[in-house]
């Protein structure tokens, strides 16, 4: 479900990336997490949806394009998540963690 939900989030204009819903330190202590995440099966969920006292809570962390209007993008993402999970009642938590082009982190120096 979260993969389809991730696609719905990425379809929002201005979203460049979806990052794991939780910081590394929230997932596992210290750098041990890096060692454990060597294959895709161990990869953390990008979008977290969990039931909390009869109500779903969705947690999303995104990157936004510098050309977009971040507050509008965030509200659109919350609406997209809600629409995707309807008719279930859901509280959506969206956090912007990066405002930049979504280029991959190439290592090489250009010159």
């Amino acid at each position: 479900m979260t993969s389809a939900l991730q696609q719905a989030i990425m379809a929002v204009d201005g979203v460049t990336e979806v990052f794991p819903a939780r910081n590394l330190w929230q997932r596992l202590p210290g750098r041990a997490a890096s060692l454990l995440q060597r294959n895709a099966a161990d990869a953390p969920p990008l979008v977290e949806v969990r039931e909390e006292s009869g109500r779903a809570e969705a947690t999303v962390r995104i990157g936004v394009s510098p050309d977009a209007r971040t507050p509008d993008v965030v509200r659109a993402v919350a609406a997209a998540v809600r629409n995707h999970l309807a008719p279930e009642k859901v509280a959506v938590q969206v956090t912007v963690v990066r405002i930049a082009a979504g280029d991959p982190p190439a290592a090489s120096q250009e010159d």
Partner: protein
Amino acid sequence: MSMPNDTFECGHTIEELSLYLDTGEFPDPAHLESCPECRNGLDSLRRLAAAGGELFASDLAAAGSGNDDWMKDILANLALELRPGRSIPLRSDDPADTLSETEGSILALVRSVADSLPGAVAGKVRLDGDVTVPGSPVAVRLDLAVLFGHALMPSAASLRQDLAEALARHTELNIAAIDITITDVIEAPREEK
């Protein structure tokens, strides 16, 4: 080049990111795809390296020699600013929702705008005020290192305008002031005698 060894919340460091840009080596390459703080750090280091290629090559090469305080300051501040920091709220259409942006993402935004100014590199960047309370007045404080010979006043005015536009586009903060301080004026590298 010696660099501050502050460890980010993800466990990695500025030095590791710099080494990655130089050599492509990183303890956990997949991490770079999923960590926004490291991605922001790579962006800043790339811009710093580009500025170095244009202006500061000698200083970059000599960083750690004792005559590079401005560069050390930039790197030390960068390490601090890459942390997520405070949570800056955004208005939501549904009262059940919690929408926000990290302070680190906004500091990185300010830094990217400042670094686009020709002949300048952002030093310390900070948001003074309670950014966690909607409507609370916030002052942006930005330190700049600039190359000797550049016209500072027009550049500062233009930068202030660019920052105001970027912050209005990407935040709902009540920006009460944008203070820009030139903390270092750097002479262009000279030929050795």
